[in-house]
Structure formats: structure tokens, C-alpha cells
């Protein structure tokens, strides 16, 4: 199995349920959302916003190539395109990274281009180039993966003109349900030094099974 697949398998397990807070920081303003995230394999994922109140109940769901967004304020289900360039809910996380995360192994061809020490860990440096016809946002992704644990500790996301758009830094490796994972993931857009988004994992559960029927359009209004 390739380094990238091992890394993703380690991160997700067969399925996972995670709770997190997402803090978006701007020069004179910041906002924190809380969310719950479900994953199963590379094809199924779901995010529910649990706070603040005005956004609570908003659901993003991916199943195969379908991506849905349920908005409780207007009681509407909105279909989203597979590759969304826009950032997610005003954060620095791309829609692609969050909802479509599994597609890194599917849509990109990885190759090891070297080694580098990141956060004190000896890491593989992987260069990921999109496959032809893949519905992707990035022109190139560089991933730093810990040689010992296969945890991804950093990433750089480039556009098709090879400009660095966003940087990802993972830190505070913590035990979650028997696996050592970064507790904090920081997304830093390269154009603005004072803005960033921090994802803090509160809990991750790899054991509770999630039925496939959970990730269906008809269930989207019942996600809790």
C-alpha cells in the first residue's frame, strides 16, 4: 500500500466519528463553529454544524460523486458541484478538503520527492499531481507524512499556475480512541498573514459502526 493510502487509512480507519471546533481568525474578528464529522471509506462523509445557533443544523454530505448541502433556515437541499473552489462557510478550509477529503488518493497520483523534518518528525515529502480529467481544485499538493506513524503533519496546496494558495500544519499529536492523531490542524491562506483557521479535534471515535444508509439524501435532515 502506498504511503498516502496508509496515511489516510490511519487517519480515518474503516469509519470514524469526530467532534471538533473550527475557529476562523481574521485581523479584527474571529468566529468559532462546532461540528460533527462522519466518515466511512473514501466515498462517504458527512458534516453537521452544531453551533453557533444561526448555523446549527446545516449539513454537508458526500456519497460517491454526490455532494449535498442541507440548509435548515430555508429547509432546502442544495446540490454542490464535486470540485468547489470556494472556501467552506467562510473559513480557510476549501470545500474540497473538508467534504471531498477522500479524493486525494482517488484523484491524484502521488510520488515521493524527498524527506524533510516537520515538527520534529522525519517525514516523507509527497508530491501529488491530479490525474487527467479528475474533478479537482488543486494543481499540485505537497504532503508531509511522518515516516514512523504515517500521520500527515503538513501540506501545501498549489493552484494550476503553481502558486501556493493554502498551507496546512498539523500539531499536538494526541491519543484518540487508540490512535495518535494531530489534535490541531491549522489552515493558513498564503495571501494574508494575519488570517487562518484552526480545527481542534475534541473527540474521535473509530469503533462505533456507521451504516451506509446514514449517508443518504433521505437521511440528511435527520443527521444528529
Amino acid at each position, binding site marked *: 500500500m502506498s504511503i498516502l493510502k496508509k496515511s489516510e487509512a490511519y487517519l480515518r480507519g474503516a469509519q470514524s466519528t469526530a467532534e471538533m471546533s473550527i475557529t476562523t481568525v481574521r485581523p479584527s474578528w474571529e*468566529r468559532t463553529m462546532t461540528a460533527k464529522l462522519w466518515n466511512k471509506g473514501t466515498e462517504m462523509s458527512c458534516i453537521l454544524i452544531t453551533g453557533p445557533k444561526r448555523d446549527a443544523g446545516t449539513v454537508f454530505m458526500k456519497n460517491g460523486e454526490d455532494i449535498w448541502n442541507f440548509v435548515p*433556515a430555508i429547509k432546502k437541499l442544495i446540490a454542490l458541484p464535486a470540485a468547489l473552489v470556494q472556501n467552506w*462557510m467562510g473559513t480557510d478550509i476549501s470545500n474540497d478538503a473538508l467534504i471531498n477529503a477522500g479524493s486525494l488518493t482517488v484523484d491524484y497520483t502521488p510520488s515521493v520527492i524527498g524527506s524533510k523534518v516537520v515538527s520534529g518528525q522525519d517525514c516523507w515529502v509527497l508530491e501529488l499531481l491530479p490525474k487527467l480529467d479528475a474533478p479537482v481544485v488543486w494543481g499540485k499538493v505537497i504532503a508531509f507524512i511522518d515516516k514512523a506513524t504515517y500521520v500527515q503533519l503538513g501540506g501545501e496546496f498549489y493552484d494550476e499556475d503553481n502558486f501556493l494558495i493554502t498551507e496546512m500544519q498539523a500539531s499536538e499529536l494526541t491519543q484518540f480512541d487508540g490512535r495518535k492523531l494531530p489534535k490541531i490542524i491549522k489552515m493558513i491562506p498564503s495571501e494574508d498573514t494575519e488570517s487562518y483557521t484552526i480545527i481542534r479535534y475534541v473527540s474521535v471515535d473509530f469503533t462505533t459502526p456507521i451504516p451506509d444508509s446514514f449517508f443518504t439524501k433521505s437521511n440528511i435532515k435527520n443527521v444528529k
Partner: protein
Amino acid sequence: MLKLAWRNIWRNKGRSIITIAAVMFCVIFAVVLRSFQVGVWENMIHEIVGNNFGYLQVHQKGFWGDQSLNRSIDLSSTDVNPVESVEGVDRLIPRLESFSLLYHGSNTKGALVMGIDPEMELPGLQLNDILLEGRSFSNNDSVIVVSEGLATYFKVGLGDTLLFMGQGFHGAAAYGAFPIGGIARMTNPELNKQLVLMPLSKAQYMYNCENRATTLVVAIDDDTDYAAVGDILKKTTSKSLEILEWKELFPEIIQTIEVDMAGGRIFVTILYFIISFVLLGTVIMMVAERQREFGILVSIGMRRSTLAIVTMLENIILIMGGAIVGMAVVKPIQFYFKYNPIDLSGQMKEAIEQYNFEPKLYTTTSFIINLNHGTIIFCIGVLVSLYAVWKIMKLNPIESMRS
């Protein structure tokens, strides 16, 4: 000599009256023409700018260039007292303005969303005056008022719900569903096609802009010069805010006015040519009539220059009289059409509405126009009278007496 001129005027009343009347009508024509042109603009600026947008607006610095909710004013931390306490400022009207995609059934349309506090608003947004049907809302209500054009586009009526999809403060999702409580006709045709009014507090919630406003409209006291208030505000207001006059907010209106005024000036210039020849006609007539009289006066020893000065004085008195009478007589006409504008109809109306103007012709009552055109016509009259001087100076008494 003045006495002589005065007597000459009364000697031939008919001729004097014709000259006065000619000048008078010229003044009336020119003034009426310009009054309509300026009046239409004055009215448009008052209706569309003054009553809808305000002559002065306060924003967070940089808002007008960017118009993003991210540059809205934080009302909880911004001290607006220095603005409110300036002489001539009546109140500050908070508004939250943004865009949203509207949904109803399978129709969608982009719309301008304006969160307002109806009790504080300017006359153009006094809901009770502009509602076609339905009712106004208070700040705590959860209904919206849509413009006539939007209601027609979506084929919706009172009680139907419109869905809003947009982006709020710092990229927050801005979704909402609001029932239509009223349908209004906006005086500004552009707004009438795309404006949605909602209670300020609801707009703030939807756009995640709690306690924020994009715009503070400065309502100024009646009979106060907004430009003077604006100058004071620009000097005194804190650096984090920008004070903009309507001329800076809507430079396209100024440009449109300038283009229109240039066209108007060409028209007035043509009118002046016609006026010049009319006046020249009366002077030529006068000189021809008095050939014999001039000849006799010169032959019995009156100096040509004295005669020329007397004739000139006569003309000046007549033209001045005509101009003053014209300026006075046109005044009631100006007032009449200011309050009873000419309503345009048919194709003309549609054409003008396309340019977002109210299809009515108003006049201005500004006396500057009367004075300007009275003076211009007076000067033309004096210039034309030089013809008489020229004729007198090369007068041959013998020939003129024979003629």
C-alpha cells in the same frame, strides 16, 4: 441726456412697447427652457438621492470602494455621537445593505437587500407612503416588503415566502426564508426592480452582522445645506469612518447631468442666436424709422456722439425694462410647473423610465437662472444696439432727411 432719452421713450410708446416685449419674451423663453432642464434634475436628485439614499452617508472607511459586509460599521464599538451632534444633523439612519439570491418555486433572481428601521427612515422609504398593498413592518417583525418589480417577476403576492441565499459577514452562510408582508413601489425605477426591504434586526441576523450597519444615512434638518454639514463632518469625524456626499456616491448621476446640461447649453445657444436677430430686427426698425429725425438733429447742430449716447441710453432703459419684466413674469410660470409638473406619457415615459428617471417635467424656482439669462439677454441687447450707434456715427444728414 438721460432726460432726453426718457422723453424719447415716451414719445413713441408703440415702438418702446415692441422693444420691451421682444426682450421680455426672449427672457421668458430662455428662462422657461432652462428652468425645466434644471428643475427636472433638481427634482430627480431630491427624489432619488435625497429621499432614498440621503445626501450624506457615513460608512466604515473603504466600504464604498469594496461594498463588502466585512467593511460594515460595528455599532457597538463605534462612537457616532460626534456625527450626530453636528449642527444641522437630525439623526443617523442605520441600514444594512447587501445582495442575495432570491428563490421562489423554480425562479431565482439576484436582489438588493436592505435592512431598515422603518421608523427612522427617509421619506422615500417611509413604507406607509410607498406600499401598494400589504402592511409595513416594525423592527421586530419577520416579514419583508418587496418592490413591485420583484413581485411581478416572481408572480408572488402577500403571504408568499421568498428564500434568500447569500453570503454574510466574513463568509458566513446567509440563508433565510421570509413571508411577503407588503409590496411597495419605489420612486427610483432601478430599486423598484430589485429591492427587498426587511427589518434591520432580521437582516443583521441573516447576514451574521449583529449590531452592524453598512451605512449610516445622515438625515439633515430641513433648509440645511448638506454640503456645509458634509464639510464639517469630513473635518471632525474619526479616521475609521468615511463621509461621502451624494456626488461622490453616485458620480454617474453627475456625469449624466453634465451631459444633459451640455446638450441644454447648445440648445440655449441656438435660442440666443435667434434672440439676437430678433433684437437686431427691432433696432434696425427703430433706426430706419428715425433716419429723418436723426438727420434733422445732426443738421441743427447736435453732435453725433451725443445723439449716439442718447439713443444708447434709450435702448439700455428699454432692454433693461424688458429683461426685468421678463424675469418677473416668468416667476409664476416657474412656480406653477414646480408644483404641477408636466406628466409625460406613452413612449416618452417609457424611454425616460429606462434611464431611471421619474417621467415628470418639473421646473426650478431658483432665481439665479432668471438673473443669468436676464443678464445675458441684456448684454445681447446692448451689443445689438451698437448697430444704432454705428448708423448714427456715419449718418449723412442730407441723405437721411431726404429719405
